[in-house]
C-alpha cells in the first residue's frame, strides 16, 4: 500500500466516522445503504460487463423481506437485513438465470422487464407488500442488546455492516474468481475457450450482486422505517446506474463516491425544486457524453495509476440486426 493510497483510505474512514455529525444521521445511513447497493451493482457492470437495468428488483425484494421480518416476526436488525439479502439472492437465481441467456443490450432490456414484473407483483400482492400503501412502521429494534432507535446509533451499526459487506465486495473482485469475471468482460469467447464455464460464472456473480443489493435494501428499509413501490420502481434501477457511472464503474471506490454524491445532491436540491428527474436526466446525459470514466476513474487516470477499465462490452464490428 503506497503512502498516497493509505492517506486516501484514512480520509475516507474519517469521513465515514464523522458523517453523522455533518449531515443528519438518517441521510448518512441512507448514503451507506446506497453505497453498498451501487457497489453490488458494479460487481456486474464494472467487473463482469453486464448492465443490469433491473436491480431495483433485488433492492426492493430485500427491503420488503426485511420489513416483513421486522414488523411481523420482530426479527432483530442485522438478521432481518441479512435475510433480505438471502431472499434477493434466491430471487436472482431464476431471473438472472434466464437473463444471462442473452448478452449486452438484450441483457439490459430483459433485466428491466423482469424488474417490471417484480414491480407489478409487489403492486398486486397487497396482503404481503401493502400494495400502494407499502409497509409502514418498520421498527429498528435492538441489536445485541443495544437500542437502535437513535439514528446516530443506527448509523454506526450500519457502518459496521456496510464496511464488512464492501470488504466482501472488494475481496470478490480481487479473488481468482473476480479475475475470471474480468476475463469474461474483456473477451467472453476467449474465457470460454480457456475452459471456464462462462454462464456459471456470470450467474454466480449475478446472484452475489443480487444478494448484496438485497442486503442494501434491507438496511435502507430499517433506516427509513418504510418501504413502498418506489423501491422496486424502474427509476430506482436507473438511480443505481447513474451513481455507479458518475463515481466510476469498475473502480473500487467509484460506486461509493457516486452514491454519496447523488444522495447528498438529491437531499440538497429537494429544498428548492422537485425536478429531480430532470436533474438526474441531465447528469446522465453529461456523464455519458463527457465523463464516461466517472470521478474515481478520472482521478485514477490523472494520478497515473492503472487506467480505468475499458467499456463494459467492446463495440461489435458486425451488424447486430438487419432491417428485413
Amino acid at each position, binding site marked *: 500500500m503506497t503512502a498516497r493510497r493509505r492517506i486516501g483510505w484514512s480520509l475516507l474512514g474519517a469521513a465515514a466516522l464523522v458523517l453523522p455529525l455533518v449531515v443528519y444521521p438518517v441521510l448518512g445511513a441512507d448514503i451507506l445503504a446506497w453505497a453498498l447497493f451501487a457497489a453490488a451493482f458494479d460487481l456486474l457492470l464494472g467487473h463482469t460487463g453486464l*448492465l443490469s*437495468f433491473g436491480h431495483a428488483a433485488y433492492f426492493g425484494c430485500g427491503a420488503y423481506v426485511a420489513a416483513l421480518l421486522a414488523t411481523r416476526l420482530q426479527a432483530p436488525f442485522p438478521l432481518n437485513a441479512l435475510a433480505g439479502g438471502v431472499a434477493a439472492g434466491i430471487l436472482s437465481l431464476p431471473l438472472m438465470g*434466464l*437473463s444471462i*441467456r*442473452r*448478452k*449486452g*443490450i*438484450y441483457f*439490459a*432490456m*430483459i433485466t*428491466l*422487464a*423482469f424488474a*417490471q*414484473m417484480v414491480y*407489478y*407483483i409487489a403492486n*398486486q400482492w397487497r396482503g404481503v407488500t401493502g400494495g400502494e400503501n407499502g409497509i409502514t412502521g418498520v421498527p429498528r429494534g435492538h441489536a445485541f442488546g443495544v437500542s437502535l432507535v437513535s439514528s446516530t446509533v443506527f448509523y454506526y451499526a450500519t457502518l459496521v455492516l456496510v464496511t464488512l459487506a464492501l470488504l466482501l465486495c472488494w475481496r470478490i473482485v480481487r479473488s481468482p474468481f473476480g479475475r475470471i469475471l474480468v476475463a469474461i468482460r474483456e473477451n467472453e469467447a476467449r474465457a470460454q475457450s480457456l475452459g471456464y464455464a462462462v454462464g456459471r460464472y456470470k450467474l454466480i456473480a449475478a446472484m452475489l450482486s443480487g444478494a448484496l443489493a438485497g442486503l442494501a435494501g434491507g438496511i435502507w428499509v430499517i433506516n427509513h422505517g418504510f418501504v413502498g413501490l418506489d423501491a422496486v420502481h*424502474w*427509476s430506482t434501477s*436507473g438511480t443505481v*446506474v*447513474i451513481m455507479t*457511472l458518475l463515481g466510476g464503474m469498475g473502480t473500487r471506490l467509484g460506486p461509493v463516491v457516486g452514491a454519496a454524491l447523488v444522495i447528498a445532491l438529491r437531499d440538497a436540491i429537494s429544498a428548492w425544486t*422537485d*425536478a*429531480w*428527474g*430532470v436533474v*438526474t*436526466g*441531465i*447528469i*446522465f*446525459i453529461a456523464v*455519458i*457524453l463527457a465523463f*464516461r470514466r466517472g470521478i474515481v476513474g478520472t482521478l485514477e487516470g490523472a494520478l497515473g495509476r492503472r487506467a480505468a477499465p475499458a*467499456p*463494459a*462490452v*467492446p*463495440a*461489435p464490428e458486425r*451488424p*447486430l*440486426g*438487419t*432491417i*428485413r
Partner: protein
Amino acid sequence: MIENLLLQVFNGLVNGAFYALLSLGLAVIFGMLRVINFMHGALYMLGAFGAYLLTAWWGLPFWWTLLAAPILVAAIGLVFERLLLRRLYDADLLYNLLLTFGLALAIQDAMRIRFGMQGVPYGAPAALQGAVEIGPLLFPAYRLFVLAVSVLACLGTWWLIDRTRAGLIIRAATERPMLTRALGVDVDRWIPAVFAFGVALAGLAGVLAAPMRNVSPVMGADLIITTFAIVVIGGMGSILGSVVTGFIVGVLEALGAVYYPSAANLVVFILMAAILLVRPAGLFGSADAG
C-alpha cells in the same frame, strides 16, 4: 361466451396495434443506428400531448393532429439525434441506451412539472364516437379506426423499406454499411432520416392513444418496458417479426385478462421467460444477435 371472447381478441388486437407501432419504430431505428431508443416511450407520450396541445391551443381538429403531431415528434427526436445521439455512434451500444434513458427521464419529468401527474382528457372526434355493428358484435368505432391506421402504417413502412429505392439503400446500409459507402452512398446522411421516421411512428401511436388512454406524462414509461419485453420475444430480426409479435402479445395479454385477471400484466413477462428458455434469440431473431 364466444362473443365475449371475440371482443377480447379484438381489444387485444387494438392494444397490440400500439405494441406493433412502437416495436416497429424501435426495430427500424435499431437496424440503422444500433441504438435501443429508451426515449421511445417518452416520444409516444409527446405525441399524445402534441395532439392535445395542438387542439387546445390552436383548435386543430384531431384529423390534422394525426399528421402534425408525429411530424412534431420527429422534429424533436431529430434535434436530440443531431445534438446528442450522433456523438455516440462509435461507442458501446450500452451508452446509447443510457443516454436515451437520461433523456427519457428528463423529458418525462419536465412534462410532469408543466402538466402535473393527473394528465389531461382528450375526446375522440365526433365521427368516430359510438359503435359499429359487425354481425352480432358491436365494436367501438374509434378502436376499429386505431387498428386500421396501425395496420396501414405497418404496411406502409414495410412497403417503404421493401419496395422503394430509399428502402433499398437503407437495407443495404444496415446490412453492409462499409460496402454501401464504397458504392458511393452517403450512409451518414440517411441516419437522421431513419431515426426521424422511427420516432414519428412512436408519435403516431401517441396521437392514436390520446382519445383512448389518459394523456399523462408517465403514459409511455411502463409501455416502453413492455415493448422491450416484446422486442426480446420477437427478436430484432425483422420488421414483419416486430409487428406480428406486437399483435400476438396484445391478443395473449387480452386472453390472459379473461382467465387470470390479476395476472394480466404479467403475461408478457411470462412469455418472455418462456421464450428465453426455449428460443433465446426470439421468435424471429437470428442466433448470432447476442
